[in-house]
């Protein structure tokens, strides 16, 4: 039978100080090789260790400068059967050891020493101090219990029984290796299966996690699992999946930074370190993992990749006397890492999809906005109409229209859909279409608003949106204005014989508030020359950098001074747009704004600019004007 393997409590150590010359460095390398050979290190390994000590010692000699040339470098070897550590202490100025040195070109004369050390050893660190530096080189060794065959006594050959025993031990070892190989290949195939599944399904995450965890139980012969996923705010660890329903209750609250985590899973989440546990060793009565039974034991792994915690997974057996083995531990850790990577990948994909959706929504919104504003506004004899629109976003819910009923009358309409973005714009287009249809049958503003409310109520109330609107019928022959309002801001106009601007404030509920609503109307006569201004509240609510609102008074004063005989609606509109932008300065826009203006140009009107053929161009923060026709 093979002798039991005994691991020394402390490594066997050789420590040699040597004179800083190459001959001594060489002697030290040979001495360390001899020491390691005495510990039973095989010939083919010895070359590597001799090489590393040799490279490090030569560097310690060759790069020592000034007074350091009098100091003795030290070479050490620490041997245990599972690891060999070599150290060389030098007194040079030191160097920066790169994480990974790439193979130097064969056509260069330098840089091979450290490359060779890193190639040969598992771990190389260079600890720099003020007076000395230490190069630490470690190599893990595979501990293979040497069967007695290697230590045969030639005068006393082993008996047949011993050979048989050796044979059965070898086959047991082969069986263990076969098991390991099978477990690894099953792990891999399970991972591949889940990857394939990931590619096929949309709502990948949940289904894929469950599938993976069932495989995991099977592979590790574990009895239970609890998967916890970190909440979006990073404060809680609710159960995402568990092998049995009674394990799946309870949310673990994670402590704020610096707090003490309660329970094993919370500790693992805080430390990002996998932890084995046996519930019999826990003194915490509120430990959530007690749910697995009084004798449960297992492994809790963080689901973590690149320092980002996604959740935790606990896997184990109900009977802690049969704990998971090293191999099972390794499989669980592999799965935990895989699950973390996949979860992060899925999240990243979802984010990408969301960004695509937002970009597409904006694209749609811009198309809608093109359709929303009238390309042309009617221009009747002696009167002109012009409108301006500006949005706080790429698409707004403010819009206006003017519909010529005949050559002596027209309807002016302005509206503000409460809400912004695509839904608001969609309601705006719908409403504009409905109004055109209704106007063919009635030109009475009260009836038009009631009709619009009836048609839009159901849709608006189902999404808790409403629209304020104002419709003005203008009879150019009688110079009569008839207006109705659905919760909209007042109308400003010039009355006969008045120098100041008059205001018409009409009561009425916004569209979409009640299913059947009557809208009262008001009438007034227009002065000469006529000027009528419809607007949305974004215009009077506009703030300057000092935070002051533009307000109705300022607007009315401006209108009195600017809607003067001879100016076309286009000109007045341009002046108003300039005025509003001047007032706003570099303050942010908080709301959409639109206005519609009708003026009487009268005799001696300035020559109208030819109608623009330009398409409406959307630009944030600047007014949009449809052309006049």
């Amino acid at each position, binding site marked *: 039978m093979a002798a039991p393997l005994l691991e020394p409590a402390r490594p066997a150590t050789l420590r040699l100080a040597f004179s800083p010359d*190459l*001959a001594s*460095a*060489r002697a030290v390398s040979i001495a360390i090789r001899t020491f390691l050979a005495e510990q039973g290190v095989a010939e*083919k390994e010895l*070359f590597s260790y*001799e*090489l590393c000590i*040799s*490279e490090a010692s*030569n560097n310690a*000699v*060759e790069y020592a400068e000034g007074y350091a040339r009098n100091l003795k470098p030290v070479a050490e070897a620490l041997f245990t059967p599972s690891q060999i550590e070599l150290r060389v202490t030098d007194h040079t100025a030191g160097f920066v050891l790169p994480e990974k040195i790439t*193979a*130097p*070109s*064969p*056509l260069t*004369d330098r840089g*091979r*020493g450290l*490359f*060779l050390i890193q*190639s040969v050893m598992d771990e190389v660190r260079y600890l720099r101090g003020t007076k000395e530096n230490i190069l630490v080189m470690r190599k893990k060794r595979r501990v293979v219990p040497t069967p007695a065959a290697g230590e045969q006594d030639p005068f006393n050959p082993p008996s047949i029984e011993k050979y048989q025993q050796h044979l059965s031990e070898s086959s047991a070892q082969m069986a263990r290796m076969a098991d390991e190989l099978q477990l690894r290949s099953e792990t891999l195939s399970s991972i591949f299966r889940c990857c394939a599944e990931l590619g096929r399904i949309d709502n990948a995450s949940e289904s894929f996690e469950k599938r993976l965890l069932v495989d995991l139980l099977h592979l590790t012969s574990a009895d239970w699992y609890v998967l916890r996923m970190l909440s979006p705010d990073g404060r809680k660890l609710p159960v995402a999946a568990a092998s049995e329903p009674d394990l799946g209750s309870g949310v673990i609250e994670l402590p704020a930074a610096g707090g003490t985590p309660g329970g094993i899973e919370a500790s693992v989440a805080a430390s990002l370190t996998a932890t084995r546990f046996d519930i019999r060793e826990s003194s915490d009565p509120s430990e959530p993992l007690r749910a697995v039974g009084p004798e449960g034991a297992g492994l809790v792994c963080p689901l973590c990749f690149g320092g980002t915690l996604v959740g935790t997974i606990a896997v184990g057996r109900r009977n802690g006397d049969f704990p998971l083995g090293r191999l099972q531990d390794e499989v669980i850790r592999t799965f935990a890492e895989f699950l973390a990577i996949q979860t992060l990948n899925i999240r990243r994909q979802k984010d990408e999809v969301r960004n695509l959706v937002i970009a597409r929504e904006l694209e749609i919104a811009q198309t809608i906005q093109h359709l929303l504003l009238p390309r042309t506004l009617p221009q009747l004899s002696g009167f002109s109409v012009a409108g301006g629109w500006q949005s706080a976003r790429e698409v707004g819910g403010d819009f206006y229209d003017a519909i010529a009923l005949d050559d002596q009358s027209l309807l002016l309409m302005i509206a503000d859909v409460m809400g912004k973005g695509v839904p608001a714009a969609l309601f705006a287009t719908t409403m504009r279409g409905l109004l055109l249809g209704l106007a063919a049958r009635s030109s009475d503003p009260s009836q038009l608003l009631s009709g619009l409310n009836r048609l839009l109520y159901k849709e608006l109330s189902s999404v808790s949106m409403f629209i304020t609107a104002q419709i003005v019928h203008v009879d150019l022959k009688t110079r009569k204005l008839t207006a109705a309002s659905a919760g909209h801001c007042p109308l400003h106009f010039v009355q006969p014989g008045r120098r100041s601007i008059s205001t018409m404030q009409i009561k009425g509920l916004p569209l979409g508030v009640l299913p059947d609503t009557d809208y009262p109307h008001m009438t007034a006569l227009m002065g000469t020359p006529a000027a009528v201004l419809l607007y949305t509240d974004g215009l009077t609510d506009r703030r300057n950098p000092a935070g002051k609102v533009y307000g109705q008074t300022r607007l009315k004063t401006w209108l009195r001074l600017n809607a003067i005989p001879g100016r076309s609606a286009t000109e007045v509109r341009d002046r108003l747009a300039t005025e509003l932008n001047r007032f706003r300065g570099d303050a942010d826009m908080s709301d959409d704004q639109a206005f519609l203006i009708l003026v009487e140009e009268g005799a001696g009107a300035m020559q109208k600019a030819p109608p623009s053929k330009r398409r409406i161009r959307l630009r944030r923060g600047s007014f949009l004007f449809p052309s006049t026709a």
Partner: protein
Amino acid sequence: MKIESQGECLSISEIHELTAQNSAHFRDEVQAALKGSPAVIEINLSKTRFMDSSGLGALFALYRATAQSPGVILRLLNPMPEIQQLLELTQMQQLFEIVRR
């Protein structure tokens, strides 16, 4: 270390190790022998038990010294497995013809 010149062939053998300690000596000796303009240079590594990066540097110096004379064959004879591995790890086997006989 033994250096022999037979016709156009320069043979270097009996190298027990090639290290920081003796590589300068190796370099100088071989450099001197190159004056005979050999067409083939054979370095017999069959007895070379150990070599470090300075030893590799000495071989590289030889490669560089002969690079100006096209057609010169640089041959390493029978390196031990550990030395062969070292040459491969540093890709220096590309610079020499490695021959077993």
